[in-house]
């Protein structure tokens, strides 16, 4: 029901002294609730080339806790980490889920996609016929999904898995898919950013993204802008060493060029974050992490030798995969 109609209805029964108004509103409300708040997001989660730190980070979510996310927010249909089924039974679930929820499920990819040698450096499963590479699986599932969410910096931009010399030709998910990918970066992701993005998809649809595909809600301003030690920076009062209480810029802090709300949000039930323990932010949400952040303890102006120099992520797509069909 439109807002105007709702107001009109309320006005119409405004003078009623019995329960007529409630009788009119309740069914509408019930209908609204059944259509709008009961939806659980069907999720297929692929682990590709990363350290598995993002599924661990996800387990650290508080309010909602992991079990509440499973019960109230998502139907985690396929996940190498959590699913009870194994072997062919797990692959059967994957195939059935894609058919049952085609165009409706959210694909979460955790890890970079190796593209060298046809992607042989990451095989998510083997069948008697062939190896299913991460590249095969992401290409297939990416075309069938409603949303694609890259969790962590490896999946978003290549991250540590694509660090120089990148022997495996690993790239972020966005490079191998011809569609929008929501990049929820971080090494690992802060569970709030990921669960918050899922909540946005469930309740309000696609979140507003920045120019490298990250939800502005979490990555829209820099660590530097929100840092508790900003007053030290403004007074040019820099730490002489790690462990000091002054500004960490001198110790390699990447805060000025890192989009993230770490200083306010903090980590693991919001208890701390790197600068709070007297160490620099190392820019783990950035598109060129880790190569753009090293040496970690050298100040920003002196960082990065030529071979690791940061570049804005290019618009061009990576090598194209031949088929978007079901590889099984």
């Amino acid at each position, binding site marked *: 029901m439109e807002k105007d109609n709702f107001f009109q209805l309320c006005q119409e029964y405004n003078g009623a002294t019995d329960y007529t108004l409630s009788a009119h509103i309740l069914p509408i409300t019930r209908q609204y609730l059944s259509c709008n708040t009961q939806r659980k997001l069907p999720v297929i989660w692929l682990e590709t080339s990363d350290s598995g730190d993002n599924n661990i980070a996800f387990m650290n979510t508080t309010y909602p806790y992991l079990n509440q996310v499973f019960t109230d927010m998502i139907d985690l*249909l396929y*996940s*190498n980490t959590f699913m009870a089924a194994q072997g062919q039974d797990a692959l059967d679930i994957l195939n059935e889920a894609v058919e049952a929820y085609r165009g409706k499920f959210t694909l979460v990819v955790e890890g970079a996609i190796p593209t060298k040698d046809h992607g042989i*450096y990451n095989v998510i499963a083997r069948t008697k016929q062939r190896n299913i590479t991460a590249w095969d699986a992401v290409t297939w599932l990416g075309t069938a999904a409603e949303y694609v969410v890259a969790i962590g910096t490896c999946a978003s931009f290549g991250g540590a898995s694509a660090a*120089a010399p990148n022997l495996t030709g690993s790239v972020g998910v966005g490079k191998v898919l011809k569609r929008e990918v929501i990049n929820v970066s971080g090494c690992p992701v802060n569970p709030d950013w990921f669960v918050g993005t899922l909540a946005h998809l469930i309740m309000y649809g696609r979140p507003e993204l920045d120019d490298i595909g990250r939800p502005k809600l979490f990555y829209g301003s820099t660590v530097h802008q929100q840092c508790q030690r900003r007053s030290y920076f403004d007074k040019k009062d820099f730490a002489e060493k790690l462990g000091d209480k002054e500004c960490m810029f001198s110790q390699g802090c990447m805060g000025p060029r890192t989009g993230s709300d770490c200083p306010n949000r903090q980590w693991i039930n919001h208890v701390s974050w790197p600068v709070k323990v007297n160490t620099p932010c190392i820019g783990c949400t950035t598109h060129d992490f880790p190569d753009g952040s090293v040496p970690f303890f050298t100040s920003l102006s002196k960082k990065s030798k030529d071979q690791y120099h940061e570049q804005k992520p290019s618009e061009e797509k990576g090598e194209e995969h031949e088929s978007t069909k079901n590889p099984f």
Partner: protein
Amino acid sequence: MSLQKILFSPVTRLSGLLSVELEIDNGYITEANVSSTMYRGYEYIMRGRHVTDAVYLTQRICGICSTVHGAVASYLLDELYDNDIQENAQYLRNIILAADFLQNHIRHFYFFGLPDFVVMPDRPPFLKQNCFDCRLDENDNRRLAGHYIEAVKASEKSHQLLALFGGKAPHQHSFLHGGVAVAPTVDKITQALALIGDIREFVQRYMLVDTELISHFYQDYFHIGETPGCFLSFGLFRFGTKNEQVLWKGGVLENNCLTEPRLDLIQEDIARAWFERAKWLGEGEIHPAPHKPGAYTWTKGVLYRGRHFEGGPLARMGMNGYYQGGTSTMDRIVARSLETFLITELVEKWLKRLQPGEPPLKQKTELAKNKGIAVTDAMRGALLHSAYIKEAEVEKYDIITPTAWNFSPKDHAGHRGPVETALVGTSIPSAELKYVIPGRIIRSFDPCLSCATHLFDRRTNTIEEVIY
């Protein structure tokens, strides 16, 4: 029943990606190839970088055991810079490391292991659970499935404790070479004591009791998945100004005889791994060869005096006299739960010994050495980092993870590694159990294939200095 080939892929509920090929003859597993199917090449990534980057960068090898990579990289840097570690830093370091062990063990038991033995609710992510051999009654099933939720909280609290001192988790920030960057203040100590109190209560009330119940109903698993009893540990929880003492001693256990590990007896074996030596890369250099005939995994074999060795809580608990038992699937599970409890007691003790004060960090800036090697035990076994450096730049960085030991492929002589040995000879009495039984055996090793997939390439007999 004639020879059957079973492809068990993917093996779920673990860290990383794993496939296993099994041959079954007359109802018994006669051959097993465990195959790690991802490769990242971390040691190459380390080359050319400032050596102090190792603490943060190597943590990115593994999500579930990140802290221990940072820890061993810090020990290595302590050696290279000749740092002296203050007493407060020693306690803080071990508290941070121990918190990650608690997180790992609790999550392994409940999130990864529990659905092997307990009927979970019929909803995602537990759909199509194979309950053909679930032996608990309805009440116990419901109760233990409920403890999954308690484990969610207890493992989160373990990481909260870690983050309180380490800044975040995974990939903590404050455990560095030279000490720890965080100040142990009374508010943090109090908060941490409250957290460890909760975690300890969880382990006592749920984890130990649940382990006992499962081991009672699945007693036959005290004879399934047995290994030959060759154990290796580098010891756990380092103390001393030079990291020279270790609380839980390590060793090499073979034929009931415990000896000190000698690092010069460790050898790689790439016979069945997707790697080749390349002359053009110089002596000893290897490179990935994904199409190598006869190879089946990205995990390189690692041998000690030419033999395969197993690591993990069972090795540690056995060597330190906390556990006497066998070498089976259930022994590994019981030892892990026991270790979890012992660690909660240690953390509480260490927290009480902390003296409130300034951050106990003193990093020297002049390098004392240009090569070094450091070892510790990680959650699932022995871990080694070594580095050759030139003016603080890494020339070569080598990592031997626990998974390289436990998930070793067959060596040049065809000898099987611990997991393959545990699988071979196992009875698979019916087709419904073709994944269930191997899955239980494999998971008892707490597989972490993210850790397996890194190139190590150590020239033997070239490193003399060893940290113990």
